[in-house]
């Protein structure tokens, strides 16, 4: 049977022939629906399709509960993005979207390392071309940066896979017995772990916003899924690293004022929540972590849609240029409020359920209060966004373009979906076939959900002047690009020894012979 990601990949192939934008658009939509149907229809926990690579068996279709859940949200979100981007997605990007989303979905349903690696790299390549632009130099640079760092991670993963294969003789997707460090390095880059996170703000702030909406949902979440499938440790150490990520992301985000940079850094922080959930040994926390992934895709998508709509209608993206928008764009403001309350984990909003689950699974004080602190930070961050973008009277930008109906519809649909899930946990549990057995709406958990937001609300007036917006550049040389440039400089020196002088070349070859002979003489 077909892997649920394959309809999209096939649509990409078909798209090579079909050149009309409308046709491609509906082709993608159709493929997405087929893919969603496949996820519902195919039996779980059974090997459905195999292939072979040399004498190794590849498991191309294996549906487990977790991967089905993540796949469902991946597919649903892609449909919502299609609605949002009805008038924005270009002909070429539609086809690349097929590959990007298709491989992101397909990677969830493979059962061996080789096909896992294949889709892992395919995501990077598709993303490279999605970001790439023939004319914009900024985007070329972003794309180059993106693929270089992701291929670095991919190669590390490949080395880990080979080490593991060499040790066990198996390529089944299971926690490895050798080379774990290389797996972790590869995954850390993909999910934007602190220190390897630089590509996230760099990419999502530079690319067109409709693509940011799309891409932000997939790449790092695939990393989280890989973390869930591959990394399995005895201790809870991963959870502490996750906490570090959650706090660090906030710390990095809070002083920025470019809308999408803030949202990107908050991805890092939210990924931290997921890592905490997955890193803990309790079943509830793991379910919570994965559930948070699902929620996160929704509200982060909404946040990016909000930012995109603001950018589309005013032409500005920096908070220092924005303000007083709530009357001009009420719908966007509403979406912003919903998204903020969701990401802050406010009760009866989307993020609350999963955060409550994670908190319920925590057995250590440090983690609990750490997450609460991160919650305060997150709330503060998005209160800042809401205040400076919609309420503050410092600026008064004009509406340049009226956003089309499709964009509004996208935001409305996704908000509606989020509210539905938030109010109806039972339905969510049925849809995703999970039963964590937690009382979501007990007074203590409601209190623990409300507390961070209230604290942040109280703190905001005090901290306002420290975190007030300022103009900033999207482009900054970071550690990795500095490393790259210093390598290039060194490399230049190395290759300058080719002077084109024949005598020099001849003496090199004779010298090689001499060295060889001397080695033999001295070692023998």
């Amino acid at each position, binding site marked *: 049977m077909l892997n649920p990601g394959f309809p999209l990949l096939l649509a990409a192939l078909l798209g090579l022939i079909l050149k009309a934008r409308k046709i491609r658009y509906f082709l993608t939509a159709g493929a997405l629906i087929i893919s969603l149907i496949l996820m519902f229809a195919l039996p779980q926990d059974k090997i459905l399709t195999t292939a072979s690579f040399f004498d190794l068996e590849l498991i191309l279709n294996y549906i487990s509960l977790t991967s089905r859940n993540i796949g469902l949200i991946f597919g649903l979100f892609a449909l919502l993005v299609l609605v949002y981007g009805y008038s924005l997605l270009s002909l070429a990007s539609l086809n690349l979207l097929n590959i990007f989303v298709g491989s992101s979905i397909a990677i969830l349903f493979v059962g061996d390392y080789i096909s896992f690696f294949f889709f892992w790299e*395919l995501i990077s390549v598709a993303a490279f071309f999605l970001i790439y632009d*023939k004319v914009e130099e900024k985007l*070329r640079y972003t794309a180059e940066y993106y693929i270089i760092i992701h291929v670095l991670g991919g190669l590390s993963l490949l080395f880990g896979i080979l080490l593991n294969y060499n040790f066990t003789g198996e390529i089944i997707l299971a926690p490895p017995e050798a080379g774990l460090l290389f797996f972790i390095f590869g995954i850390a880059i993909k999910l934007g772990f602190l220190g390897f996170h630089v590509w996230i703000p760099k990419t999502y702030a530079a690319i067109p916003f409709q693509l940011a909406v799309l891409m932000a949902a997939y790449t790092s979440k695939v990393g989280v899924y890989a973390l869930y499938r591959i990394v399995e440790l005895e201790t809870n150490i991963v959870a502490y690293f996750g906490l570090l990520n959650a706090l660090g992301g906030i710390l990095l985000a809070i002083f920025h004022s470019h809308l999408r940079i803030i949202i990107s850094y908050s991805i890092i922080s939210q990924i931290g929540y997921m890592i905490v959930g997955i890193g803990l040994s309790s079943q509830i926390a793991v379910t919570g972590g994965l559930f948070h992934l699902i929620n996160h895709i929704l509200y982060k998508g909404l946040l990016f849609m909000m930012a995109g709509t603001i950018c589309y209608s005013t032409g500005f993206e920096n908070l220092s240029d924005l303000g007083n928008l709530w009357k001009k764009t009420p719908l966007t403001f509403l979406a912003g409020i919903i998204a903020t309350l969701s990401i802050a984990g406010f009760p009866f909003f989307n993020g609350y359920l999963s955060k409550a689950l994670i908190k319920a699974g925590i057995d250590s004080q440090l983690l609990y209060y750490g997450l609460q602190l991160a919650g305060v930070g997150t709330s503060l961050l998005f209160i800042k966004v809401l205040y400076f973008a919609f309420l503050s009277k410092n600026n008064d930008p004009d509406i340049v373009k009226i956003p089309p109906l499709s964009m509004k519809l996208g935001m409305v649909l996704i908000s509606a979906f989020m509210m539905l899930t938030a109010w109806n946990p039972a339905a969510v549990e049925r849809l995703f076939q999970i039963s964590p057995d937690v009382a979501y709406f007990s007074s203590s958990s409601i209190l623990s959900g409300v507390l961070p937001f209230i604290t942040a609300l109280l703190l905001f007036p005090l901290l306002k002047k420290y975190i007030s917006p300022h103009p900033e550049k999207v482009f900054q040389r970071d550690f990795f690009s500095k490393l790259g440039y210093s390598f290039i400089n060194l*490399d230049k020196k190395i290759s300058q020894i080719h002077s084109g002088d*024949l005598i020099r070349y001849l003496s090199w*070859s004779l010298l090689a012979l001499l060295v060889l002979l001397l080695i*033999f003489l001295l070692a023998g």
Partner: protein
Amino acid sequence: MHLPILLILIPLFTVFSLGLFAFFSKKYIIPLVFTSSLASTAIIFYFIFNRETRLPFSYNLGSWQPDLAINILVDHYTLVIFAAMGLMILLSVIYSLTEITRNKAKFYLLLNVLFVGIAGMVMTADLFNFYVFFEITSISSYALVAYNDKDISLEAAFKYLMLGTVSAVFLLLAIILTYMATGTLNMVLIPERLGNLPVLTRQILIAFYLIGLGVKFAIVPLHTWLPDAYVGVPITYNVLSSALIIKTQFFVLMRILYILFGLNFLQDNMITTILLVWGIFSMLFGHAAAFQQNNLKRLLGYSTIAQMGYVIIAFSLGTPAGIVAGSFHMVNHGIMKGAVFFAAGNLHKAAGSYQLNKMQGLADIMPKTSLIFVLLLLSMVGIPPLSGFASKWLILEAALEAGYLLPGFMIILGSFLSLGYYLSIIINIYTGEKDLSKKSSARAVGLKINEILPAAALTAVCIILGLYPAILTGLIDRAPEFLLEQLNYINIIIGG
């Protein structure tokens, strides 16, 4: 059965009759060349398809008894080069039909001399005979480098000639010394007689062989001719050099080392280790130097050097898996690099230059060729499901299996470096002008079918091999038997 000798004789007949035909009428040249390369390809495929029943196959020239005669051998190891020859001979001739405009007869003469040399080098089991074919290959290579008769190609050919001749002296010296020590040139008889020599003497012999052939397969300090030579030559030579000539020289070196000296000797006396380290150095250096190039052909030349590094690493592991992996990469890199050069030649038609910054905006003019080009470059980096991934997988697996973790890591590092410069090619090709009025110097050109076909065919092979790599491994999986175990090789002639 005279098939193997026909593989040498058919191009040889073509070489000598080309002059005759050209003397009377020029219009017979192309059909003649085409027929002969078709026939050669047919023989190669006959051996490939009937490998289980017909191989190993030995042929003694002059009907002398095998220990006196010059023998010609086709075994499963030979199939490695045969696989590359089977594709490249015909495709390069097809591509050259429109590329070569002046002095066609001479070009095809040299091309066929090259085929004679390669076929002879691969099959011969006699050291001096090998040297003769080595010279034939070298001379035709020098000539083809100089073929365009421009200053740059003449200078490159001169450098190539000087370096090649100096190295050939060492090769000849090694052969003479081997003959003096053993009294025979028959590669089948040498192994047991060579065993009596002192270790140091044998090591020195190996050093001479290594330098003699090392210049030709461009291991790093001896590589200097290659990037220069690649710039001003016809694409056909670029393809053949990358895919066949270099590979053949390395192929023969491995046969000499493993058959004449034996695996145990090589491993006990650090020779495999030296080769391994040298291969890693060669690979990293090639990648690093390719990074700095802004001429596409030079860049690809350095990348060939680096890719040969992978092959050297794989072969010097000394395990059957390593031999299979190295052989796979030899063929596979030949296919990929051949296709890359064909596509680059097509792109050059529009850009008019191989300078990377002058190739900007080509993607708008030649979208299909650019797409193929990008696919091939991704394959070179080793991104699945293209065939580059399969060979990288095999090499890494072989290296780790043999316990070489650090070399494995270096291979990963190397392919990461290679991404950098392949990316710069892609970015240059896929860069457009902001305002359409400022058109780049590139112009649209119609490609002829014989220019599209080779690149497209090889790309198809590349994709198919990526999905079903077992096609190729099934072809070469018995190669280690005839390389690592001297007795198997010796028995082809003496025992059989």
